[in-house]
């Protein structure tokens, strides 16, 4: 099994005449947490949506587990073990918590493991077990984020894409979510994280890419970027948008 799990090669994404992402290349190895950082509108979410198949790649290659996936639709990509937790959580508000999880399990490749996986997810998020019969729309923002992550985990993905998981959550819940991400990696899930919370993201990630205006502005080990971000903030008064 090769170390390289995902390879984004010169990805270009256009929305009509607007180029949202221009020739971005990102690599993700197994077991890594890779952060994509950058200001609002820099193109981070677009990169994740292109990898997950929700928006088409105008050019470039997306290679997941050694196979090109840039022509596959979203519903086929998730069945290969690449799950996206979209921005804004996007749980199904009128459906119950357990039905949301059932839908997450549709893409599970090992059908016989479904019950066991559901138990694992409910063990990971005890609050979801307590509220399993409740409509997802009645959960708090933090609980909805947990449900969105739990729903993605129902397919036992080898790569989990998280788009702004801390957005709009109380600091204490943000702590919980970040701890959870670290825990998921320890259990063998590779993670690509898009975050505006730069400092937290650099704390838990191994490597990071800073995206600006649709291109990779810089990349490197998170510890290194963290140091340079501190320096920039201290001396120049501008951060990586911290």
């Amino acid at each position, binding site marked *: 099994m090769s170390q390289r799990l995902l390879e984004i090669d010169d990805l270009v994404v256009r929305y009509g005449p607007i180029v949202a992402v221009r020739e971005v290349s990102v690599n993700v190895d197994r077991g890594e947490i890779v952060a994509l950082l950058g200001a609002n509108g820099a193109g981070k979410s677009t990169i994740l949506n292109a990898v*997950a*198949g*929700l928006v088409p790649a105008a050019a470039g290659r997306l290679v997941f587990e050694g196979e090109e996936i840039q022509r596959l*639709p*979203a*519903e*086929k990509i*998730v*069945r290969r073990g690449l*799950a*996206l937790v*979209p921005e804004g959580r*996007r*749980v*199904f*508000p*009128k*459906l119950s918590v357990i*039905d949301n999880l*059932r*839908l*997450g399990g*549709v*893409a599970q490749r090992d059908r016989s493991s479904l019950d066991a996986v559901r138990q694992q997810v409910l063990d990971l998020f005890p609050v979801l077990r307590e509220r399993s019969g409740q409509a997802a729309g009645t959960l708090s923002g933090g609980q909805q984020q947990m449900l969105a992550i739990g*729903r993605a985990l129902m*397919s036992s993905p080898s790569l989990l894409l998280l788009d702004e998981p801390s957005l709009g959550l109380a600091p204490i819940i943000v702590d919980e979510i970040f701890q959870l991400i670290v825990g998921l990696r320890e259990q063998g899930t590779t993670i690509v994280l898009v975050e505006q919370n730069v400092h937290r993201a650099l704390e838990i990630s191994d490597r990071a890419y800073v995206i600006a205006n649709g291109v990779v502005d810089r990349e490197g080990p998170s510890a290194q970027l963290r140091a340079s971000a501190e320096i920039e903030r201290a001396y120049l008064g501008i951060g990586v948008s911290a």
Partner: protein
Amino acid sequence: MMVFAAAGQEAVQQAINALALGSTYALLALGLAMVFSVLGLVNFAHGELVAVSGYAMYLLHDAGLPFAVQVPAAIATGAIAALVMQRVVFRPLRGASFITLLISSFALSVLVQNGLRAIISPRQQGVPLPDFFNESVHLGPYVIGWLEIVTLASCVIALIVLTLFLRRSTQGLGMLAAAEDFQATRLMGISPNRVIAAAFAISGALAGLAAIFLVARRGTVDPGMGFMPLLSAFIAVVIGGLGSLSGAVVGGFVLAAIEVTLDATLPGSVQPFREAFALGIVVVILYFRPEGLLTRVSEAK
């Protein structure tokens, strides 16, 4: 005393009529709402699904086949016609604007109606039904037509089966999810083509079932027979709240109750304006509940 008893009896009979009519509206409204909720399309060719299902009954009757064959054939014809509509007309228009879809469905409606005129006949054709439907049962003081009983029972069974399918099966759950968030449903690994095809097939089967009872009521088919039921179904959907499945069913019964009550209470001289009164009441309902009866304002997007 006798007068009061008669009035009570009258009210019960009217209520049964309203339930039977309402259940037919509910089937059609549910089909409309189903397609709308997954595709954002108000399918004005939905009435033509009723028409082609009715014509299937007529043709089979003409060929000498019994009612027991006509019934499943009508339902299957509705489902297949809806699948063909979606594949040939609506699928190539995926992603088109609401107005484009609306006008296309109007065009399709006109096309099917004229197709029936050209191929079969512009005139009404008789479809006699088993005598059974003209008989009544006497339950105490009430006389209830078999047609009303069978209509109501079939519709209730259809609604229960559909609810179980939507709630219990993964495919059905996928349809409910798609109605809420189409893109997120794709992220679950559910194919949008399958969800859309299933929504059309179900809406067509429901239209076919409704067609059986509409034909039974009229005893005839004609190319434009789908228009009035479609209009009623559309009003029912609006009353219940566009996109809400349970709202469509409730809206169907509410509209039928309004119509039957007006039928029974309006003096003969204003009867021709019954539709105007019915729509007037709908306007009043929507004035107070602009999002429909079953849509909470917070849910409305």
